[in-house]
């Protein structure tokens, strides 16, 4: 019998990241590893530095100190030796942008930031494929419709502009657009923020299915502990730019150790 590997390979190695806009504004000395297939939740109140950290991880903002190392595990296919381990801010901008476009994905809180509002849903989904060099209109369209089905949108609306979609549908469209190139690592910034609870629940359910089906590794930033509970395997609690507690999601939410985490958990409203 083949035993499953207990220790999944490290995908993202974050070493001592600091990005400060002022004292305790930003994030400071963040150190963690993200394993392949893992969903890591970063929780904390507004201004705790979680979004700054995400921007640094996602290659959008250079840190003041520290390294973000992306390990494309050598075991799978024989990669170029130089390419097996990429230091995000040591490689050139061209390489970094290609990485963001082809192997990573970013889901913004506001779908308007992640979508091209001027072009149809199909063009939005196809953009990353076209950037990869796909030049067959029929195939692009078929893929677009397939992904609209995956994210539970009506494939018949493939030619409609995103602004005719509701907030929840725009968010689904943004997720389809990001996942269409099957990225290995996805960053999500409050993916369910601003949606009402029933829409949020369905979106979360869909996200959980997709993450499992595609074997995605996800860094999820949220202030909503319920969202974190549903999606994340592991949690990092941030406060004033620093990580105050890390651990398995259930462990942190059921038995918080740090006083700030205890406060956070006890502040959750239950109807």
């Amino acid at each position, binding site marked *: 019998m083949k035993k499953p590997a207990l220790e999944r390979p490290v995908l993202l190695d974050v070493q001592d990241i600091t990005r400060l806009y002022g004292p305790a504004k930003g994030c400071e000395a963040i150190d963690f590893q993200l394993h392949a297939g893992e969903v890591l939740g970063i929780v904390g109140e507004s201004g705790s530095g979680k979004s700054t950290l995400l921007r640094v991880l996602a290659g959008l903002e250079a840190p003041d100190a520290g390294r973000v190392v992306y390990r494309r595990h050598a075991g799978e296919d024989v990669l170029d030796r130089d390419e097996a381990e990429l230091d995000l801010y040591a490689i050139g*901008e061209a390489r970094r*942008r290609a990485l963001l476009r082809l192997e990573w994905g970013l889901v913004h809180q506001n779908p308007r930031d992640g979508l*091209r509002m001027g072009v*149809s849903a199909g063009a939005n989904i196809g953009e990353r494929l076209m950037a990869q060099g796909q030049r067959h209109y029929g195939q692009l369209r078929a893929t677009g419709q397939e992904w609209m089905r995956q994210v539970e949108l009506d494939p018949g609306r493939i030619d409609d502009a995103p602004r005719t979609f509701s907030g929840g549908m725009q968010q689904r469209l943004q997720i389809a657009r990001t996942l269409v190139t099957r990225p290995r690592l996805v960053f999500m910034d409050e993916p369910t923020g601003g949606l009402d609870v029933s829409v949020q629940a369905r979106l979360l359910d869909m996200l959980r299915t997709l993450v499992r089906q595609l074997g995605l590794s996800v860094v999820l930033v949220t202030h909503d502990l319920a969202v974190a509970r549903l999606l994340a395997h592991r949690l990092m609690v941030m406060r004033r730019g620093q990580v105050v507690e890390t651990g398995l999601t259930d462990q942190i939410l059921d038995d918080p150790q740090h006083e700030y985490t205890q406060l956070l958990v006890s502040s959750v409203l239950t109807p």
Partner: protein
Amino acid sequence: MDGYNFAYLDEQTKRMIRRALLKAVAIPGYQVPFGGREMPMPYGWGTGGVQLTASILGADDILKVIDQGADDTTNAVSIRHFFQRVAGVETTTATTAADVIQTRHRIPETPLRSGQILVFQVPIPEPLRFIEPSEQETRLMHALEEYGVMHVKLYEDIARYGHIATTYAYPVKVDGRYVMDPSPIPKFDNPKLDGNPALMLFGAGREKRLYAIPPYTRVESLDFEDHPFEIQSWEHTCALCGSDHSYLDEVITDDKGGRMFVCSDTDYCQTRRGEVA
């Protein structure tokens, strides 16, 4: 003409523009910024093209100016007169006789020869502008060859109209590297850009950018595998010269619905009629 330097611009300015042109020829399709000058005409009337023509014009060059293919429209006539007055150069309407041809919207039907220079007037030099408003970002996209969004526009065309509905300023890739806006020429003229023996220069006065296609350069129009690039075609022939292979303009002749199709290239049409007669 007294009080003016030859061809209106001062020598320093011409030198600056020529330096920029050399760079543009060295990097086909790359937009080179230049210090555009005020010209005695409004932006949008061809200030970019006029500055380029002024910089490259020699005293014994023969100049031809066309606007929408015609030698006798307002823009063409006034620019031709301008250079007659400020440079005293000989002008012509014959494509074959011209050394420098300044054009707006068309490439002449008569094939160009080696040694000729075609100068385009360009309104919007940036092909990525419609989808990316930031200049900083578009320059980066050019530098990193991130041209996926160009196909987003073509995709959108097919999704809306069933075919690629872009009929002018149709984006091209120059020498396998830079995506370029060939100025508002009809896509009918795009194939003429490819491997053309003449030097083609593009000047945008308002945006202060110039770019070039050197002679015999590979120029491909962007398309999809299942929706290949196609040029316009007409059911009619030219009502004057009978041509069935040139770009036709539809001209309304009365208010009772009368219309005729004629060649947009007046010199080509007249030459053909002269040969037939």
